[in-house]
């Protein structure tokens, strides 16, 4: 950094020495760049301010004017529950798979194949969510129906598989699986990055002591990457919480609060609820939807903030 500063100063000195015209060019250019930077901050503040101003009427409105004639809090609570349930379910499914994918690409696959596979996994992240939604409702959902029936019959004593199993496949479990596929590339990208940075001397040291590949991974790669994997998982969770279209298409919603993952009636999520109801809403209903958007914004913000905090603390170490 000190190095950087000296050259900057040298540049400024030179510019100063070579007359006003050049200095003006410099000033204009650096001002433009500052304006761009400030624009971005303003945009972010704008997002918060506009959501608050447009959402505010819903917080104070009488419950008789709101959708479903209930107070805003009891309107948003089941939605928030559904959002967190879907997000956590997706994360629970995705994290072990993402870690395995990252380990496979960095430590098991031959290097040339690994590059190609990395590109393939990145493509997963580029597929638009609407397509995941269509795939979920037309392909995965119907395919999961017999499996969910099996879960109900064999594991029905566990509350989450209580049933009665859906016959359409439009369940929270299918949503969780689709969201897991969507966030897997995000988590595995973070994990891949850190796994490939594990110091070579640690890995070779472990092998020189006679460790097998798995012992080497368990004693060096995994401890080195742990905090990054945790923060990658949080980033993935943030994405899953805000995911809209896949949930809106797949989930058959009823609005209740239930942990039953394979049933016909599922709690909706905030984002899906907005997408489903916004086009036909007007008046205070719009304000209520925007207010739920604000709640979603707060939840994802907290999640991402936590993720960044974990990364920052790991970097200090």
């Amino acid at each position, binding site marked *: 950094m000190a190095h950087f500063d000296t*050259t900057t100063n040298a*540049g400024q000195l030179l*510019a100063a020495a070579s007359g006003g015209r*050049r200095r003006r060019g410099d000033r204009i250019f650096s001002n433009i760049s500052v304006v*761009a930077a400030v624009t971005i901050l303003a945009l972010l503040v704008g997002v918060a301010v506009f959501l608050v101003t447009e959402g505010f009427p819903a917080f104070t409105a009488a419950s008789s004017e709101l959708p479903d004639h209930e107070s805003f809090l009891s309107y948003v609570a089941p939605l928030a529950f559904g959002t967190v349930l879907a997000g956590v379910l997706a994360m629970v499914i995705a994290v072990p798979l993402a870690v395995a994918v990252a380990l496979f690409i960095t430590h098991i696959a031959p290097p040339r194949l690994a590059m190609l596979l990395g590109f393939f996994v990145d493509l997963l992240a580029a597929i*638009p969510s609407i397509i995941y939604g269509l795939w979920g409702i037309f392909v995965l959902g119907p395919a999961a129906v017999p499996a969910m029936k099996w879960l109900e019959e064999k594991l029905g004593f566990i509350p989450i598989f209580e049933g009665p199993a859906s016959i359409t496949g439009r369940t929270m479990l299918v949503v969780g699986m689709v969201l897991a*596929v969507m966030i897997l590339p995000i988590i595995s990208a973070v994990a891949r990055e850190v796994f490939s940075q594990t110091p070579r001397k640690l890995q070779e040291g472990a*092998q020189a002591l006679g460790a097998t590949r798995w012992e080497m991974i368990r004693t060096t790669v995994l401890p080195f990457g742990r905090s990054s994997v945790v923060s990658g998982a949080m980033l993935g969770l943030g994405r899953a919480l805000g995911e809209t*279209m896949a949930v809106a298409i797949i989930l058959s919603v009823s609005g209740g609060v239930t942990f039953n993952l394979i049933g016909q009636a599922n709690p909706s999520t905030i984002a899906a609820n907005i*997408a489903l109801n916004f086009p036909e809403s007007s008046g205070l209903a719009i304000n209520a939807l925007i207010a739920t958007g604000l709640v979603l914004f707060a939840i994802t913000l907290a999640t991402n903030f936590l993720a960044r905090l974990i990364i920052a603390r790991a970097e200090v170490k």
Partner: protein
Amino acid sequence: MTPPPADAAVLSTGSTRALLAGEGHRGGTLPGWAPWAAFAGALAVCGLLEAALGWFTIALMLVFGAPVAILAIYAWSRPVEGARRAKDRAVTMAIVAAFGVSMAPLISLLYEVIKRGVAGISWEFFTSDARGVVGGGGAAHAIVGTLVITACAAAISVPIGIMAAIYMNEYGRGPLRRALTFFVDVMTGIPSIVAGLFAYALFELFFGPGIRMGIMGSIALSVLMIPIVIRAAEEVLKIVPQHLREASYALGTPKWKTIVKVVLPTAFAGLVTGVMIATARIIGETAPLLVTTGVVDSLNANPFQGRMQNLAVYAYNEYRSPGVMKQASYDRAWAAALTLIAIVMILNVIARLVYRRYKTEIR
């Protein structure tokens, strides 16, 4: 699957060490094809067993086959190679299996989109809109809308994003820079639907409730695109070597000219790649457009006037409210999905080719 030569050395030190420690290593080694044989054998056994029970499906065979294969390789390796090597083999097989499980959805998804999408692709799909047509028509209006909305979003995001990245990398210091780094991180986490609500709320203040315009969608997409552009641009500006800048300063070039004539051209391929990948990320967004640009059947290429259709919302709508001929609507939804995926893939591939072809060799 065959262990590289380096592994042999590791193996021998492994056995020495294991012997010294008195751990259970038996000295032998399984043949190179052992994992494959264990996997195939496990699948065959599970398949036959299921067939005998009368509930054979390929999915079920794989679901039960993978754990059986893991157990099989462990049981086979343990008496020959000892407990530690056996565990290593089992874990390796589990990781490979998990990788296969993760890739299966992508393969299934691409296969289904192509298979079902081709049914809806026709000349009409690309050339006509759906105005006044009952249960038919094409998606030309949606394709034009997607291109216009995305182009406007890129026109807003690219200059702001790249200038902000220049600020962060070349000028920034102190609290503004720190704040920017932090808030760009925050911005990448904004859910797309929230970006859409923001654009709606912004325009509602000026134009009244119920407003729908193409440019609103572009603004919403910009909120999502700007942080991606900044991240990508910052990454490539960072690797422009310091000595290039110093050489330029030494020639008396002012700083802004150094940035425009030295730094940006050096980073050009990376910037183009970053912008294309960012475009590919937002071009398929549905949720923010659903609440800002609305749904419409006829062609509208003016982003400042009235509703504007786009491919993602078109696909959603054909699925959500199919016409009288349900299957034809679904076909069109899949055709739109295929078109979108094709655009995204082409953008990604071109981006990588540009990078490979034009990147400046940095020494």
